[in-house]
Each structure stands twice: as structure tokens, then as C-alpha cells.
């Protein structure tokens, strides 16, 4: 039996099919979840994927955060359900206060799409155990609102507790504080990041690298071994 990983589709989600594919490529079973359903269909983990939910019209992720499905995701995440937020999903997690801080428009005011170099800072979360701490990887990045901000105290706390999961290397593409590309909650089950690991699971496609696959194999191993 393999793990069942849910992928939520909100109106305006874009990477739901890609995320399902990445889950499949990793060997797990993707389960489509719909934003209007509170029911998570008994999945073992949830991915909130990229896109422009509700057009990102108010703030990125702000409207999606109030979807029925999020009520359940918030409850269960607090109880330990592994949740990964990618890009818009990360934004939704901060809006839902499952992760601290907030996301703002890129400091250069443009959308940016590039192959981004990152360092894995925390290889102990539910989604990162197949990486080594300190490992340098390339993951595609594409966003309009990728600037991570938080107050000094929150930043200090994140740094002190090792909760900065990923950091931009060589180039900060959006003005994120402390070069933060992704963070985790204290328990390590909820992780959010701006770059898109689901776009880096097949050679040939996209940048041709597969540096994103360990996200999905990490969680699979954790769930299957649990």
C-alpha cells in the first residue's frame, strides 16, 4: 500500500495536475481535493499547489484561505497532518497562520520565472528528509508575490529554531528577508516554499533537473514507514 497525497484545487489553481503527476512519479497516489469540500478523503498528506487562487486579487492566497477545505486542513495540520504549500500554497499557509509571516509583491515589481538555486537548511521536516542539510539544489521559481516578510522577532525565532527550510543562493529573486525561500512550522509537518519542486521531477521537462523529486519521496517514505 502506498501513501495517498491530496492536492487541493481552488478556483485559479494552476499546478494541481503537475503536482499530481509529481506525486505519481514519486510512487505515491495523488488524490484530487476540491476547495468546496470539507472532506479530505482520508489522505495521508496534503499539498496546496501553485497558481493564482481567486486571481490573487485581494492578496495572494487571502480568499482561498477561507475555503471550506481549509477549515479541515487547518484543524488537521495542527494535529500533525503533513501539509506542503508551494508558491500560492505557501501564501495560503501564511494567510491561514499555519506558518508565520506574510508574502508580498516581489521587490522588483515584476513576475519572475527562473531556475533558482537554493540551499536546503532543514532536512528534518516531513517533506525534506531525502535531502541533506546544506545540500544545494535548483528548483524553478515563478511568482509575482514571493517576498517573504516577518517581524524581527519572528525571523529571529525562525532562525534560532532552524525553521528556515530553504534559502535562496547567489541571487535573491524577490527581496525575501534573510533570503528565505521556504519555512516550516515548529513540528515540521507544515512546510511552505516559493519555488516549485513539482516542476523538477522529470529530466527533459522544464529545466531538465529532478532536484524537486525528494520532496515527494521524503513524504512517501515517512508515510509508508509510519
Amino acid at each position, binding site marked *: 500500500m502506498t501513501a495517498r497525497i491530496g492536492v487541493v484545487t481552488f478556483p485559479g489553481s494552476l499546478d494541481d495536475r503537475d503536482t499530481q503527476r509529481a506525486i505519481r512519479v514519486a510512487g505515491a497516489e495523488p488524490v484530487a481535493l476540491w476547495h468546496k469540500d470539507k472532506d479530505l478523503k482520508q489522505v495521508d498528506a496534503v499539498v496546496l499547489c501553485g497558481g493564482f487562487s*481567486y*486571481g490573487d*486579487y*485581494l492578496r495572494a492566497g487571502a*480568499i482561498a484561505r*477561507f475555503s471550506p477545505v481549509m477549515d479541515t486542513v487547518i484543524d488537521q495540520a495542527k494535529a500533525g497532518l503533513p501539509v506542503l504549500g508551494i508558491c500560492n500554497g505557501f501564501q495560503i499557509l501564511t494567510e491561514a497562520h499555519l506558518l508565520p509571516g506574510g508574502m508580498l509583491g516581489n521587490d522588483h515589481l515584476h513576475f519572475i520565472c527562473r531556475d533558482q538555486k537554493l540551499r536546503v537548511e532543514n532536512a528534518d521536516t516531513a517533506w525534506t528528509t531525502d535531502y541533506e542539510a546544506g545540500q544545494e539544489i535548483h528548483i524553478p521559481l515563478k511568482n509575482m508575490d514571493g517576498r517573504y516578510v516577518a517581524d524581527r522577532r519572528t525571523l529571529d525565532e525562525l532562525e534560532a529554531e532552524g525553521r528556515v527550510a530553504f534559502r535562496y543562493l547567489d541571487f535573491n529573486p524577490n527581496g525575501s528577508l534573510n533570503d528565505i525561500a521556504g519555512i516550516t512550522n515548529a513540528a515540521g509537518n507544515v512546510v511552505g516554499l516559493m519555488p516549485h519542486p513539482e516542476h523538477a521531477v522529470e529530466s527533459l521537462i522544464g529545466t531538465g533537473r529532478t532536484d524537486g523529486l525528494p520532496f515527494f519521496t521524503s513524504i512517501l517514505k515517512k508515510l509508508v514507514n509510519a
Partner: protein
Amino acid sequence: MARVVVDVMLKPEILDPQGQAVQRALPRLGFEGISDVRQGKRFELEVDGPVDEAALARIHDLAESFLANTVIEDFTVRVEEVAEAAK
């Protein structure tokens, strides 16, 4: 020092997808009784020196040529009084 506020809103006849998205979310949040929402921009300019007629006129020009896109947006310029009904 004084603060001048420029409010920029889409012209009423222009589609406002942002305001619409907010409005359509309201019932879900349990808010009734709001018949329309429009979303625009607010600029706060900190002006050195007195904000006299001439200064306001210049800011008006600035708003017209730069802060607002008058093809689709209207704007208003006003000097902001003391702190308003605070948060």
C-alpha cells in the same frame, strides 16, 4: 511636513475584477448587506514644507500623469487631517 493622500480608483464603468472577487467572497465569510466593493490604490505622500495651493496643484499633476492611469482610473487628491478613526 504634511501628508497628501491620492486615492486612485478604477472608473465606475470599468470592470473591477479585484473588487468583484472580494465581494463574492463576503457571503462565505458571513458578511451580508454589502452591495458593491471596489478596490483601488491609496498613495500617501509626505510633503516637505507647507501644502499650499501651488503644492496641491503640482501633486494633482503628478497624480494625473503618473499615479493614475487616467485611461481607466479616476483620482482624488486631499490633504490628510490628523490621524483618523484609528484601527
